[in-house]
């Protein structure tokens, strides 16, 4: 929990010139997983199906901090206001991404004008409207995106991630 808060907070702050200096921030709206246990002996990794938020919690272009598949893996939910591939919800515009840079694990910050997640580590830029494609950068993978589902009540669930998360050799620990 502690590490997660730190990463999310750092990810949200305005970055000072010259690198990562953490500042204090408000508590993150991190959701605690209900079931993070992998079942051994299957071909596919079992992801927990975690409720991350309700569509009502999301405002267009305002990132909501979440953790998935567990609280130590910070990420965001975004309502982009425009239907995108992989987007869910009534408008097909809700997406979720890891916010740990897949290059060296620095926390990403959201640029609402460009709708990109940007990394203060080595300047990588990921496009939230294009499946987390690395617009430019040093990561060797595009940004891990959540596989999302929305139920009748508008609850948003994550059910998996499409790339390996930085800092873990198994997405579910």
């Amino acid at each position: 929990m502690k590490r997660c808060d730190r990463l999310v907070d750092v990810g949200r702050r305005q970055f000072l010139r010259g690198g990562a200096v953490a500042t204090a921030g408000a508590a993150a709206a991190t959701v605690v997983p209900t079931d993070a246990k992998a079942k051994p002996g299957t071909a596919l990794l079992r992801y927990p199906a975690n409720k991350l938020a309700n569509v009502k919690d999301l405002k267009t272009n305002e990132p909501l901090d979440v953790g998935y598949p567990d609280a130590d893996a910070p990420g965001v939910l975004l309502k982009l206001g425009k239907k995108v591939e992989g987007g869910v919800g009534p408008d097909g515009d809700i997406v979720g991404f890891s916010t740990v840079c897949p290059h060296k694990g620095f926390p990403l910050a959201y640029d609402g004008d460009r709708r990109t997640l940007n990394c203060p580590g080595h300047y990588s830029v990921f496009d939230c409207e294009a499946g987390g494609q690395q617009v430019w950068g040093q990561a060797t993978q595009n940004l891990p995106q959540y596989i999302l589902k929305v139920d009748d009540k508008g609850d948003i669930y994550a059910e998996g991630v499409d790339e390996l998360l930085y800092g873990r050799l198994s997405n579910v620990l």
Partner: protein
Amino acid sequence: MAYKRNVDRLPIIPKDAKKHNVTCHYCIVGCGYHAYTWPIKKEGGPAPGQNAFGADLSKQQGPETEAWYAPSMYNVVKQNGQDVHLVIKPDKGCAVNAGLGSVRGARMAENRRSDITGTQQQRLDQPLVWRYGTWQPTSWDDALDLVARVTARVIDKDNEDDLFVSMFDHGGSAGGYENTWGTGKLYFQSMKVKNCRIHNRPAYNSEVHSSRDMGVDELNYAYSDYGLTDTIMIVGANPLETQTNLFLNHMVPGMRKGAKVIFVDPRRTVSINAAEIEAGKESVLHLAINSGTDLALFNAIFTHIVEKGWIDKDFIAKSTFQGDTAQPQNAQFPAPLGSLEMAKAECKMSVADAAKICGVAEADILKAASWIAEPKDGQRRKCVTAYEKGIIWGNDNYRTIGALVNIGLATGNIGREGGGVCRLGGHQEGYFRPSDAHVGRPAPYLDQLIIAGQGKVHHIWANDHYKTTLNASEFKRVYNKRTNMVKEAMDARAGATREELVDAIVGAIEAGGIFSVNVDIIHTQIGQCAHVILPAVESGEMNLTSMNGERRMRLVEKYMDGPGSSKPDCLIAAGMAQHLERVLREEGRNEYADQFKGYDWKAEEDAFMDGYNTAHPDVTYDRLRAMGNNGVQEPVVGFKDGKLVGTMRLYTDGNFTRHGREDKKALFCGGGWRGLQAPGKATQKANYKFLINNGRSNINWQNWFLDKDNDFVSDRYPYPFLEINPEDMAELGLKAGDLVEVYNDVGATQAMTYPTPTARRGETFMLFGAPTGTQGNVINAGVNELILPNYKQTWGNIRKISDAPSTVAHLSFKSKEYTTG
């Protein structure tokens, strides 16, 4: 959707995995990595005692952890015939990169050939010979016999001019001291081939003649100089993208310590954006000059600092030539060389005139001069200058590079801490060959000779003229035709004996054809014309030594098998020599055959000992292995306490030696501004609307030959991008992702529109070296006096050929510049 691997977990490196030293072979920087291998049915575990890191992997690891690797750093490969897991991850202990990987190097593992995971199936795994209208796999002996028999028919003891050779001269990749020696011994010792060229240019020549003629080797500093300096000057280079970890691990710390940064480049690059973030906008000066006017700018800065007296008088008196002219201008020397006084007179350029020519403000030129040379607190200012293809492949190469070195010499900034005037480099270096003096200067313009119908047999070692040469439209047209003549002759004699076949080939050659032998790791575009294809291995599939941009020499330890029967180039060259010797003896040409003795190498280490070690007896594989990923900076000066002793930076004693002058005095270059120097450039500029500036990108760089088979990379840019101003796009009726044709007086090519608000009107930038759009098609044949190509000054028109195809529908066309959010 963007490409995703959907890898949820990776095998864990066990405690007892084998660990090998690896220097990334994808660019000049040469970052340190380790390759871990372990048996296919084993893996480590998450508990600290179970894995190579001693880390608890059941927990999320923090930023910059050593205990993580991306799916791109993993593969399954063969080692001594067995399937093994392979992880190649950056080495935190390496002074070059301190644990950083780049978007290229951190994919080394994924870019190995694997029959298990299916990666890099394009790698050649056996010799191929053109037979029955296609390429048929065969044995080394069969393939080399044909090469030797045809080659022997066109060479003779004192005339090897009909054998044309295109051969890499670099380190890293599949180059290195072993392989440059193997090929060098064959063509420059056993033979004296003069019609040859290097992998990236149409002649066998230096890219920096003037710096060397002035006494200054082009790699004279240490990377740590960027952290010890007052000013960093970057000319015609984009180091964040093309020398990534040099920028991140050495230049950025210098900027954070307060160094000012000057960029000379017509284009705003991501390097400039990053420098503004790190150093602050007020400490970054971007001189966005008109394309090709660098010389005018440097001469004005030089004139100004000399007039102001911001020069190092003691250094000039002690270390530079006194008098007037030491070397007059002539056909070999495109500018006179001599004293500061001589250069001052020849290079005279006022700041006002330069401002007009370059299209930048006088105040900015003055600011640059002051940042470079104005004493600071009564002390000499330190300035490190780095340049690359912007001027190497730019207008008036000789004089422009000379003018930059002039500034370094005048201010005493060469051979000093925090100084250096260096090229940044592309590949690593690894050159050790017999003398090339017989090639001559200016060297033959090989590509033009081929176009003119000369050359009968062409040996090609890891060159792809089709993707990377200039005047490529014409070259391809002629080369296709000439090699097809030979293919047709071979097809017509299907079923013939070897003698009959060789006669048929020689008949086609005499009628104007050319016999093409292609040694490479993949089937290249020019390889489509080949009659014999010979598969080579690359770094890591063999032991390989190279040095990086600060002359840091390392041994990459072989950690996997090469594909099939592929071999190190040095051993392929040895095989060619042995077959030539045999064939020549059979033909009774015994004296000539004797020249091809001395290739009984069993392994690459034998080639290293036969070549490099003879000149540097202290340096052996065992000693280099012991020096690990930090290696030793060349030149090696001794072996002490179990360690090789190197040289951190050159010329610290103030003696300049690269020109071979006995007085060891550096020379200044007296090259005045003379406009666009190469033939056809000024006319092209006048007749076409757009500058078609060109170069590489972060993701598409030297290892593109592999990356064309890499899904992550191809997904980002299925076509070469053309950065263009949105208003220009509107005028041309273009939308993001549209395909355009770029055309001019010499050819045409295609690219994908990438809207770029920072691009100036009328100035585009096209990605160079793409398999899906050869930028070289529109570069004219113009070269400088010493046959240095001029890629950067190219003008053309643009027309739309297609709406954005479905293959680009998922692409992001957003700005590549990082913002602080």
